[in-house]
């Protein structure tokens, strides 16, 4: 297998590799997805760059929280200020996978993998994309919806930015077994309540039930101005089911995924009433 492997020692070096080799360059974070493809022997990239030594890992607080792209899932699972982010990270794989997989790489995982997008959408995350000519910050929502062919070619995801969390959040993942499995559905919610106990702001993010993780905005809108009660929870669950666009794969049928969106949105919102 003849290939060029680049292991840049800094972001600048990584960006210059991107600039020089552009299209056709495969970028690896922790390699947990790309190495699996290589091992299948059906995929022969000619140019590969690993970001493992580019100095992009670490969690920084500076008015908001910044998580470097190659911060591994073990480290993400220990971030205390964003409980459903750490929970979601802990529920991925086993310890060895979490030592390898990175937050940046996780955001490039095709569904039904890539659980971290769900809590990150609930926390209004932005991602920082850098290229040799500068950097831009876009909402995670917009990033996930961008066509994949635009990525990894001329810019690199270098960090995830999170505003200070407000309100209450909950996360639930359904898999076919308890550990080390992709999601049938993953649900992340965050609600902010006013003094009267009415919801003033809501995020309801869904994973594994569409082409990418997304916010169920109609369900969010329905929750605003309501209290969390049996009716508002049931209505939000129903609307979230309608907003889902699930697929059938080896883990679950589209029908089952949609059904479980209803069950898990309900359970997740009910957690917030306790």
């Amino acid at each position: 297998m003849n290939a060029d492997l680049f292991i840049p020692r800094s972001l600048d070096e990584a960006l210059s590799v991107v600039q020089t080799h552009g299209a056709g360059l495969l970028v690896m974070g922790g390699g947990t997805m790309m190495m699996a493809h290589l091992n299948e022997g059906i995929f022969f990239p000619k140019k590969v760059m690993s970001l493992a030594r580019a100095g992009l890992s670490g969690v920084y607080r500076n008015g908001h929280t910044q998580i470097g792209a190659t911060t591994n899932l073990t480290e993400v699972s220990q971030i205390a200020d964003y409980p459903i982010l750490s929970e979601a990270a802990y529920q991925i794989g086993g310890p060895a996978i979490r030592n390898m997989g990175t937050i940046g790489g996780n955001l490039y995982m095709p569904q039904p993998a890539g659980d971290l997008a769900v809590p990150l959408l609930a926390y209004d995350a932005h991602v920082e994309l850098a290229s040799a000519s500068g950097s831009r910050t876009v909402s995670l929502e917009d990033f996930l919806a961008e066509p994949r062919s635009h990525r990894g070619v001329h810019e690199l995801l270098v960090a995830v930015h999170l505003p200070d969390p407000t309100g209450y959040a909950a996360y639930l993942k359904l898999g076919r077994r308890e550990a080390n499995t992709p999601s049938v559905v993953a649900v992340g919610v965050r609600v902010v309540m006013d003094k009267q106990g009415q919801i003033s702001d809501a995020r309801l993010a869904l994973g594994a039930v569409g082409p990418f993780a997304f916010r169920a905005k109609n369900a969010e809108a329905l929750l605003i101005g309501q209290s969390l009660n049996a009716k508002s929870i049931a209505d939000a669950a129903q609307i979230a089911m309608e907003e889902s666009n699930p697929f059938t794969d080896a883990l679950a049928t589209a029908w089952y995924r949609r059904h479980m969106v209803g069950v898990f949105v309900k359970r997740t919102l009910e957690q917030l009433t306790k």
Partner: protein
Amino acid sequence: MESITVTFKLNGKTTAVAIEPLESLRTVLREHLHLHATKAGCGQGGCGSCTVLVNDEPVLSCLMLAALADGQEVTTLEGIGTPPHMHPLQTAFFDRFAAQCGYCSPGMIMAAKALLDKNPHPTRAEIAEALAGNLCRCTGYVAILDAIEDVVTQMQEA
């Protein structure tokens, strides 16, 4: 690109090996260095049979570029015990019949060692969580958990 040379500490000994750029650490361990305890299972990150320690942390050697081992410390099952001097985990797996086909045992033992090095007194639930990425299709896991608990008890008594 031609082959590249990586140099790392393997089971305590500095080792240099010529590899192809995209070879996995598992392939290098098994096919270049002829250390066959580390198993080639699914190659997809699903089974844990290729688990080794890099800088004392468990990783899946099938998903790690061997090139990234350069300058690191790698420990395989061969590095923690030998037939005349078995590691307590190996002895406990033997005593508790924690292996039937044995294919998962090296990965299980390396994952368990990583746990015990950090947390010498884990609960049974913590042991199970540490093994969440390791599949065994023979034993039903009970004997494996029993074996690791035995080692925990031995360490408490020692």
